[in-house]
């Protein structure tokens, strides 16, 4: 027991010192840390409930995906069948009931059509499944059903792209350290500390921002088209007012040909978005406008026609302006969204939590006061109960607080409000180890053992109990870490770290202190 070699002492003190030093940068304001050249040092992040900010959970609209894939496939089938030589005549094409069906007019072409259709499907990963099932019904009709595997693969790829785009859009806000992570198969979690206007945030990330320029079909009969008789190669869209408009399916240019988008003002001094196209887009736009002077074209955002200006003269410069009842803010949000590219999949908000910066500051303040009082109360209580041994336990508790903070900084962990509660609880449970040890020493003394032997037995017997108790405690904390969300996770992190570090400080450190004291003072009796 008394045998505590110098290297052991040095390493215990070394580890604790490193822990304490790591905690220091997190205890000062960030500006102070930077001004004394500590900006490289790891810091503890404050959770949204302490720093204030917005938490938004987005979910992909997977029902929309199936629909979108059907309509894309419909377009592909139409154009591919036309390209075949001899051309395969198809008709009665429909996307009802979640399947694409069409009729092959010449039954002798059926095999060719099926072969062509099969080449348009792709394998899903290495599952052996394909992304579309192709069937022939009544020997004239081809039925294509999107498979779940195909949809899942599409969603998976689309989500990866969506995360990047959401990140680009939020980075454009210039806020500090946003968190954008994919959760599960179809969700994205966005956390922006210090940003407490979720409306602005959602306007920015909720928009798909699919931009298309299409020619308006002025020859089409609007009433007939609205009733479902759409001319081949056309589609019916809605204006912002809700009025229908017939446009060509084929887009002149899309948002992918965009080079730059920025908020600006139009000739009427209303907020608008100025866009520049890349050379390919500019060429396509110039060619189309040259041959269509006098005809209107539609500017379409997320399948809504914002405006349909008439082409006065060929537009050769490759730039355009989008207007349509914008405020400067919404024009800015649209510019950012367009610049970042369209979301490959529609996202909707399923959860939103915002904490104002005022409440966060109040919570930190209250948390610090409560923790300080808790520490002082525990320290006094331990001292009056265990005297010198209580002092050692108290030193361990205080060091433990710093070491937990240091470990959190090192792991770049997030401190949440329940995390502060975790701290207070850890103070209580860290003391438990010392209570166990000290009570055991008392017991052994009562049984008449000598000083050194009592202390040794106390530590030895209690250590086993402490280990077992901490393992079970850690099981509960670990479950919270895995299944909990946000603030609860923060609580679990503190609890887990506290369990680990408290064993070190409460057992090893106090044991060292006691051993050093016993060796130096060689007391005949101990006051415990």
């Amino acid at each position, binding site marked *: 027991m008394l045998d505590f070699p110098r290297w052991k002492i040095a390493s215990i003190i070394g580890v604790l010192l490193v822990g304490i030093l790591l905690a220091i940068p997190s205890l000062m304001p960030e500006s102070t840390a930077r001004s004394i050249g500590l900006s490289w040092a790891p810091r503890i992040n404050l959770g949204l409930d302490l720093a204030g900010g917005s938490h938004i959970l987005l979910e992909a609209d997977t029902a929309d995906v199936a629909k979108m894939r059907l309509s894309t496939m419909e377009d592909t089938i139409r154009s591919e069948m036309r390209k075949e030589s001899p051309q395969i005549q198809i008709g009665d094409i429909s996307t009802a009931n979640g399947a694409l069906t069409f009729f092959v007019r010449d039954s002798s072409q059926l095999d060719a059509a099926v072969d062509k259709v099969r080449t348009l499907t792709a394998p899903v990963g290495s599952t052996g499944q394909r992304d579309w099932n192709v069937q022939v019904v009544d020997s004239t009709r081809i039925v294509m059903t999107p498979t779940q595997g195909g949809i899942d693969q599409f969603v998976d790829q689309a989500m990866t792209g969506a995360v990047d785009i959401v990140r680009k859009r939020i980075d454009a806000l210039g806020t500090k350290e946003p968190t954008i992570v994919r959760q599960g198969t179809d969700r994205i979690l966005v956390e922006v500390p210090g940003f407490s206007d979720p409306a602005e945030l959602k306007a920015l990330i909720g928009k798909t921002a699919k931009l298309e320029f299409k020619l308006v079909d002025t020859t089409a009969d609007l009433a007939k088209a609205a009733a479902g008789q759409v001319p081949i190669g056309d589609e019916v869209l809605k204006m912002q007012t809700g009025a229908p408009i017939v446009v060509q399916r084929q887009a002149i240019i899309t948002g992918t040909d965009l080079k730059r988008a920025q908020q600006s003002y139009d000739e009427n001094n209303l907020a608008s978005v100025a866009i520049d196209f890349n050379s390919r887009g500019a060429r396509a736009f110039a060619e189309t406008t040259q041959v269509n002077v006098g005809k209107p074209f539609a500017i379409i955002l997320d399948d809504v026609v914002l405006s349909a200006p008439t082409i006065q003269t060929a537009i050769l410069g490759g730039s355009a302006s989008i207007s349509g009842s914008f405020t400067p803010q919404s024009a800015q949000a649209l510019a950012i969204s367009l610049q970042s590219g369209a979301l490959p999949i529609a996202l909707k908000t399923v959860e939103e*939590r*915002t904490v104002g910066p005022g409440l966060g500051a109040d919570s930190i*303040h209250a948390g610090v006061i409560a*923790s300080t009082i808790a520490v002082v109360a525990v320290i006094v209580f331990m001292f009056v109960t265990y005297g010198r041994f209580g002092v050692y336990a108290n030193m361990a508790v205080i060091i433990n607080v710093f070491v937990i903070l240091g470990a959190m900084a090192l792991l770049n962990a997030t401190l949440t409000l329940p995390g502060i509660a975790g701290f207070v609880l850890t103070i209580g449970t860290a003391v438990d180890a010392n*209570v166990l040890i000290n009570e055991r020493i008392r017991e052994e003394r009562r049984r008449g053992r000598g000083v050194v032997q009592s202390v040794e037995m106390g530590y030895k017997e209690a250590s086993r109990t402490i280990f077992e108790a901490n393992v*079970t405690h850690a099981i509960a904390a670990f479950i919270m870490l895995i299944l909990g969300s946000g603030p609860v996770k923060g609580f679990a992190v503190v609890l887990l770290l506290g369990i680990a570090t408290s064993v070190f400080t409460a057992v090893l450190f106090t044991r060292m202190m006691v051993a050093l004291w016993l060796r130096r003072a060689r007391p005949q009796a101990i006051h415990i």
Partner: protein
Amino acid sequence: MRLLKIVPDNTNIGFVALRRWAFGLTLFLSIGAVVLVGVRGLNFGVDFVGGLMIEAKFDHQAPLDDVRTKIDSLDVGEAQLQQFGDAQTVSIRLPLPASTDEGANNALVNKVEGALKAQYPTVVFNQVQAVGGKVSSELIRNGAIAVFLAIFGIALFGIFRFEWQFGVATFVSILHDVLMTFGFFALLRNYLEFDLNIVAAVLTIIGYSINDKIVIDDRIRENLRKYRQMPIGELIDLSVNETLPRTVMTSLTIILALASLLIFGGHVLRGFTAAMILGVIVGTYSSIYVSSSLLITLGIDKSRFKQMNQAVDKKKAARERAERIAPKP
């Protein structure tokens, strides 16, 4: 200086003799808690039922009636007003709008905020939460899974590390602790909301309560080896009494720390801390009166320990023999 001893030395309280009373009380309280939860229900937060919560802070006493009339006039569903914090702060709860449209939540928040802001220009919105139906049911499911996993995981640990009787006894007393917490929240449903944080509190209570029981179980196991002839009732009493100073000391320290959090920690954590303090109290009760006494009812198998002891003795004897043959240098 005389040191404080909360529990006097060498207590000899007959806990085991009281066990029938304790079991009766425990059963009564547990059934009471279940009935309370059934009848009164829990005041679930938006985390678990979905909907909107807006916490508004006024620069004077919150005009509750006026706020209610104002929101009712917006026709956005039935608003629930609650005051968890100070008199200036009010939390407004609204059901989720029927529309599944992405903008619906946000429009609703804007509508309520706009109306209040027009009437009271100095009002500040401290917190806004909007949780959709799908997410809230997932949160409920995860919470329930977490609590069950924790109870079972720890009971399993008890079975492997000790004997099955220990695992079962711990399981029963922890179930009691959890039920008590639920009952407490049903009783105080007008003051305390049951949200995600409370699940964390329940898990912590489980962790703490286990901690307490393991310490006593550990001592029982130790004494089973030490006093092989002692009747089991006496042995459990001895173990509980021996660990009593530690049990009381630790519970008091933790309650001391938590009380400071309850009083000074702000209103956001109030439910969380209240749950934890209650948990520590019921956990201590069940450790002393329920889990260890239950071992007798479950009929702890002393013969198993005898076998274990014999195995330990054999090993010891073998080691001693080996040392005799080849003495250490």
